[in-house]
């Protein structure tokens, strides 16, 4: 089920709120947790019941291993459970996500013909596998409390964060489920939650999906693009990626609020970053901290000299690239980001006294360029895009990009509302304005978490919620999928 769908907004989420608070009002606390698990299972299995079976099996086995570790005092047995857990989780992820990629590369290298599995990738498998992996490792280290099956199952399956994060640690979420103070309706949290949800929904439906249409046209017609159009397309993609993923996280954050559960911040205005290190401390923050805790630090972190620190950093980014997808484009994207951050640290270039705006612009531009690799279907496509970028020549924007934007109902409305003359004379104007305004918003506005924390319940904010919700709901048909479902 998608957050940006009629069934979710009109039925699923209102029913969740009513049921959850209903059980809690009757002091049926366990039933309330079970109800949330049931709803999360419905949410996850809505489009494919087969996904649900994988999730249930994964939760069950992990719970047995984690319980085993918390119960036993035998170091050997604990180690056995740890490795079983690591192998199980990485194995499931490899089997569903990477097996075909691996075999495909072997087939290409050895001219072999090992058959591919061609399995459908279960939604959000990378997210819930990592959450469980963290729990397994923490249990081994004795950093994991003894949780009930209900609590553990809800921690993994809690629908706001199930399929696209944020990647939450057990000790952030489960204590909140356990706290009975969180089981009462809190209108302050409901208000903050609906505000964050409205902002997130609008970011996803009104902004990201608009850019998505333009980016798709661009990437489907790479050879027809000139330099101007390639720049527009890659900038649009950087905006699509940010508004899509952060919009999703804002919605998750808002729903968490409405259920009195505080989810961690995942995006802290990343395009305001003044260096690559800064950007990666703001972008997909819960993934970054996961890699720092479970990969970078175990590798030695920064304790083993500069050279080893750089190497560890590079390894983390390569692993991050692999995590993002089974394609060389993701691996190269991760590697490129790792190299950039290493070079930045080595040269200390970010500490140069340069105006903030220049630092922000340079960081954003380089990151956006790397994202063009992230979006490409293959390395060859990325190469073609870059060839067009450097050799395409400046000229008018590729007309189908403009037409795609012009097809928006809002643009038709503006055309008839008196802007037809300007829009005809300057066909590129509205798309350019939309891009520039979105970009300016990323550079200057506060992020949703800041806005939510500082929310005052004014009539202005009331109008913001109502207008954004109505406008987004009215824009829901023609549903597009969240980019981060496949990671």
């Amino acid at each position, binding site marked *: 089920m998608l957050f940006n769908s009629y069934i979710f907004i009109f039925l699923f989420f209102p029913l969740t709120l009513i049921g959850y608070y209903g059980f809690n009002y009757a002091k049926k606390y366990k039933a309330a947790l079970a109800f949330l698990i049931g709803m999360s299972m419905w949410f996850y299995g809505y489009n494919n019941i087969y996904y649900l079976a994988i999730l249930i099996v994964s939760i069950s086995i992990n719970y047995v291993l984690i319980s085993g570790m918390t119960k036993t005092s035998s170091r050997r047995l604990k180690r056995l459970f740890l490795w079983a857990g690591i192998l199980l989780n990485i194995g499931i992820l490899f089997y569903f996500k990477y097996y075909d990629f691996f075999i495909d590369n072997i087939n290409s290298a050895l001219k072999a013909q090992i058959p591919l599995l061609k399995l459908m990738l279960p939604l959000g498998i990378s997210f819930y596998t990592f959450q469980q992996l963290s729990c397994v490792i923490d249990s081994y280290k004795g950093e994991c409390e003894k949780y009930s099956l209900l609590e553990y199952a809800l921690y993994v399956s809690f629908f706001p964060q199930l399929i696209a994060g944020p990647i939450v640690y057990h000790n952030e979420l489960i204590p909140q489920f356990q706290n009975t103070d969180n089981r009462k309706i809190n209108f302050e949290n*409901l*208000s903050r939650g609906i505000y964050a949800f409205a902002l997130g929904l609008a970011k996803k439906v009104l902004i990201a999906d608009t850019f998505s249409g333009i980016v798709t046209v661009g990437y489907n017609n790479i050879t027809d693009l000139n330099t101007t159009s390639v720049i527009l397309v890659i900038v649009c993609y950087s905006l699509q990626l940010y508004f899509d993923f952060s919009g999703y996280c804002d919605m998750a954050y808002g729903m968490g609020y409405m259920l009195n559960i505080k989810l961690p911040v995942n995006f802290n205005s990343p395009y305001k970053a003044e260096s690559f290190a800064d950007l990666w401390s703001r972008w997909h923050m819960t993934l970054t901290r996961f890699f720092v805790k479970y990969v970078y630090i175990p590798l030695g972190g920064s304790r083993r000299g500069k050279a080893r620190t750089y190497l560890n950093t590079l390894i983390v980014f390569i692993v991050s690239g692999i995590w993002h997808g089974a394609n060389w484009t993701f691996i190269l994207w991760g590697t490129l980001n790792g190299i950039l951050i290493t070079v930045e640290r080595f040269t200390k270039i970010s500490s140069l006294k340069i105006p903030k705006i220049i630092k922000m612009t340079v960081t954003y531009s380089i990151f956006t360029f790397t994202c063009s690799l992230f979006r490409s279907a293959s390395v060859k496509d990325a190469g073609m895009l870059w060839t067009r970028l450097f050799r395409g020549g400046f000229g008018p924007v590729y007309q189908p990009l403009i037409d795609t934007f012009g097809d928006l109902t809002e643009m038709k409305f503006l055309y008839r509302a008196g802007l037809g003359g300007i829009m005809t004379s300057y066909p590129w104007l509205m798309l350019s304005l939309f891009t520039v305004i979105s970009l300016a918003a990323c550079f200057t506005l506060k992020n949703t978490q800041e806005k939510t924390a500082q929310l005052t319940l004014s009539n202005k904010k009331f109008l913001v919620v109502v207008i954004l919700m109505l406008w987004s709901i009215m824009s829901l*048909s023609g549903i597009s999928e969240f980019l981060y479902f496949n990671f």
Partner: protein
Amino acid sequence: MNQQTAKKWFIKCILTLVISLTFIALLVIIVDPYFHYHKPFSFLSYRLYEERYTNDGISRHFDFDAMITGSSITQNFKPSEMDALFHANTVKESFSGAGYQELADNLDRALSRNKNLKQVLWAVDYNGFLREYDWARYEEYPTYLYDDNPLNDVSYLFNKSILYHGVLTNIAMTLAGAPSTTMDEYSSWDMETGLEVILSTYDRNNVNTDVPTGFGEEEYDMVTQTITLNILRVVNKYPDTTFYLFYPPFSIFYWDSLNIKGTLDRQLKAEKVATELLLTCPNVKLYNFFDQYDVICNADFYSDDGHYCEEINSRILQWIAGDTGLVTKENYLEKLAKERDFYTNFDYDSLYE
């Protein structure tokens, strides 16, 4: 933040959203631009457009006993002319770029809902025999309008495009006193015609010749499947309805392209298979106008190699009403032989002199 203030603010948000959405839904239900819930109200003006959104609603709620259907080459038919010639009350349901399956499914739904539908004029796209039976050009479809599931109507009720292009446009037309689109006007077009216009889209020097040219068992099965699973499926299901099927008279430039590609023989063999299948149905009257040479060889009637102007649609109705071009079990082989002879031996170069 005070809990009481927050409670009031939150409830105000929810209530405003519920009231606004209810108002929008009621507005869509009342105006109902695609006739999903009811027939058009006499006090409202309607703009008929967007065939794939409108046609199913026409089938559901309009009063009619005859239908014209087919791809874009049926868009210029005038139902009023069919009314006069066939003593019927006709609606037009064209689907631009349609495949056979889409047309058959739509007709099946229309016939199952409307027991009075006794005459169907159905253009059988001549260039569609050798496509997969379920060939379709359009993937994004407003399926919520086609089924009878009220739950997915949310996509109709809360849809900014429908609100703007359908509801608000109809209200604006009504307020301006503009009349509704007539069935004759619905989806019709008036493009330029003539040799120059045709040659702007048809370049005989750039025809793709890298196409299969033979006609074997696979092609035979393909034609049989396409006709049987689509046309015969519907025709045999409604034996009391008369189906006037016709092969649209594509221009001589279409035949030129077949010659250049080397697929003329393949196409004629496909036509033979299709014709034989269609002639097995007693409620089918099949027409072939490829011997209307004064039309086919006159570029002034065409806007490209296949699409003819409104005048030809009128002529087709008259031909069918007078049984001109009627294909029967007795004459189809002779007609095919003449067709082969003419289009094989035609001096295509003369078209460009």
